[in-house]
């Protein structure tokens, strides 16, 4: 048995034990506290979890692509904030306090365009000027925390926007009537569908197209990619811009679900960009895994609402920490083996 075999089976074993442990703990908690499961896992809960998960999943997909290609985009949180404020300002600019759905979609589109410009500059700084990825990423967060409420103050005189509009859910007649599945699949926010499409497409591109091969190689052995005749930095430019755009879209989707911008404290994004990083680490850099983790975290977030309605006293704040604790455990158990080998290292070709 080779070393690699050994570590692979060890990982599988540990993962299995971890999952089993979680299940046992969960079951024990249900029995011990006499939790009314049927009042917690409801259709409404699943829908809320999907809504909460989609911005996280989008940003996670972006961050995953960047890191797969060797660039740690730690600025996801910042780019989400920029996405949310751009969408809000654009929405207000287009339709005032009473915008239509067309305005909303146009605003989301504008947020995406703005994200492209922003991340292009960021990518140049990271790749061309070999900026420190950690510090530059934190800087984007700080800038988001400053400039977004600043812009809100300029536009609305306060860091909160007035109520604008939310995205309308689509609803397919008759199909909605199907119990359980109907209200989840056929009466839903279109952005949940967009997210699902992005997730699946990201998986296909990463594992089934040549560009996906290049992204994986750029992060793990850029030299191998270079000798194979592919420009490593061009691949990285593409993924960094993609990651910023996905985070910006995530922020815009967050706004479209909320209907107004909030710039107090850590803004309305409130750590979702960081959770997105956690999500793709949890998902082991696999888009489907990252989306599943995002759903888990979205569900965890919404569980608080369920607990309140079921009169269970658990601090939502402490429960919200579960992803962070989880990621430390995952990193400790798996170590650094899963991270692409060349993350954080600028690549300079021989010539």
């Amino acid at each position: 048995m080779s070393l690699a075999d050994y570590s692979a089976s060890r990982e599988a074993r540990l993962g299995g034990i971890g999952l089993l442990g979680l299940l046992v703990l969960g079951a024990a908690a249900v029995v011990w506290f006499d939790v009314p499961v049927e009042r917690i896992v409801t259709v409404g809960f699943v829908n809320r979890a999907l809504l909460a998960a989609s911005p996280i999943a989008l940003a996670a997909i972006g961050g995953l692509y960047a890191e797969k290609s060797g660039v740690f985009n730690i600025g996801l949180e910042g780019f989400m904030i920029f996405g949310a404020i751009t969408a809000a300002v654009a929405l207000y600019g287009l339709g005032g306090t009473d915008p239509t759905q067309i305005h909303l979609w146009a605003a989301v589109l504008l947020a995406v365009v703005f994200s492209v410009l922003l991340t292009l500059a960021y990518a140049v700084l990271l790749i061309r000027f070999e900026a420190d990825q950690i510090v530059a990423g934190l800087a984007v967060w700080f800038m988001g925390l400053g400039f977004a409420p600043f812009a809100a103050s300029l536009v609305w005189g306060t860091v909160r926007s007035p109520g604008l509009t939310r995205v309308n859910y689509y609803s397919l007649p008759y199909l909605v009537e199907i119990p359980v599945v109907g209200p989840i699949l056929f009466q839903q926010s279109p952005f949940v569908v967009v997210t699902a499409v992005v997730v699946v497409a990201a998986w296909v591109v990463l594992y089934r197209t040549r560009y996906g091969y290049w992204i994986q190689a750029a992060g793990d052995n850029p030299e191998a990619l270079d000798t194979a005749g592919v420009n490593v930095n061009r691949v990285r430019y593409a993924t960094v811009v993609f990651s910023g755009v996905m985070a910006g879209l995530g922020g815009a989707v967050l706004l479209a679900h909320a209907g107004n911008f909030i710039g107090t404290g850590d803004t309305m994004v409130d750590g979702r960009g960081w959770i997105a990083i956690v999500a793709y680490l949890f998902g082991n850099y696999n888009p489907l895994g990252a989306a599943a983790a995002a759903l888990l975290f979205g569900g965890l977030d919404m569980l608080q609402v369920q607990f309140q309605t079921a009169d269970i006293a658990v601090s939502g704040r402490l429960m919200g920490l579960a992803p962070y604790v989880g990621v430390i455990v995952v990193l400790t158990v798996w170590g650094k083996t899963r991270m692409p080998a060349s993350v954080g290292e600028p690549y300079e070709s021989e010539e």
Partner: protein
Amino acid sequence: MSDAPDSGRVRAALDRAADRMLDASVYERIGIAVGSTGLALAIGLVIVALAGYDPIRFATQLVVGSFGSERAFARTLQFTTLFVLAGVAVAIAFRAGVFNIGVQGQLIFGGIACVLSIVWLAPYLPEGRIGGVSLIVVGLLASAVAGGLYAALPGALKAYYGANEIITTIMLNFIAIGVVGWAVDGPLRPDDARSVRTEYLPDNVGFPQLLFDYPSFSLVGLGLALVVVAVISVLMTRTRFGYDMVTSGYQLRAATYSGVDAERMIVATMTLSGMVAGLVGAVFAIMVQGYFIDPTGLGTYGFDAIAVSLLAANNPIGVVPAALLFGALDSASSHVQIHSEVPVQLIDGIVGLVVLFVAAPELFRMIAERTGLGGGER
């Protein structure tokens, strides 16, 4: 030259990293620091103008708000004190080649440990000066221990389990904010408290006012911070431990060759860094607040400290002027908030820009080369 291409490349990468982080000449470092700040401020002023305000007036308010009055200056020094300590905490780790992004979390645990130890011990100690001083000493020790332990954890996870300290320390920041935030809103919140906070510190716990008549600043606090700078500076340059630590940051294999236990050094470095970070929380509690609050409202000293340390090229003495700059910016925002129509969050954005530019010294090297300024050094 069988191994030439590979070891050559590794060495080139090492050299690059060393150049960037540590070995840029002092002038170049100062140039980059001034350039980053200048460029960020210039962009900020352009934004002010674009938003329809008077940039000159805003610039004046920045100066007035940080140095224009005794009160403003005292406020600047208040923030500077916190930035000095936090910056030194970051610098310790960075110098040793360990990336402690978790100073924010460590200072939160340091602060709450300080407040709790003082509040719990106060009934057993005499009132008055002697009791107050002993409580302060206890509080400072408790904060250093708490901060140190909270940093030792990611250090040990990195050293013995290979867990990337950048990610674990960021996660531990959120955990600290969440846990302490929950605690001060729950078990630690007195029944009569209208806001989210802990018990007040006893009246005899506080730094005496010297020279400045400003409740949130005392020269004693600044003095304490400068003593820490001196201690860490001496530690780095004059002791075996410091030599081991800095050598590990420069060239880990040479450090190992010289007998340094790499794993233990990581844990030791993180612990020391976290101890200083813990002191930030203690000084915040004792000098500024008088109790502890929900950490979301604390200010991002631990994060800004990364920029402070980088501006100072991770040199503890250089941290002092860099901290003064950040202190002045924070102080000016208190002034701007009240006296200017320009939304105060702009200053946070400008700080973000400073951090961004500090992260990319290559940018300024290129500018310097293009414009013929100081390009000859390279």
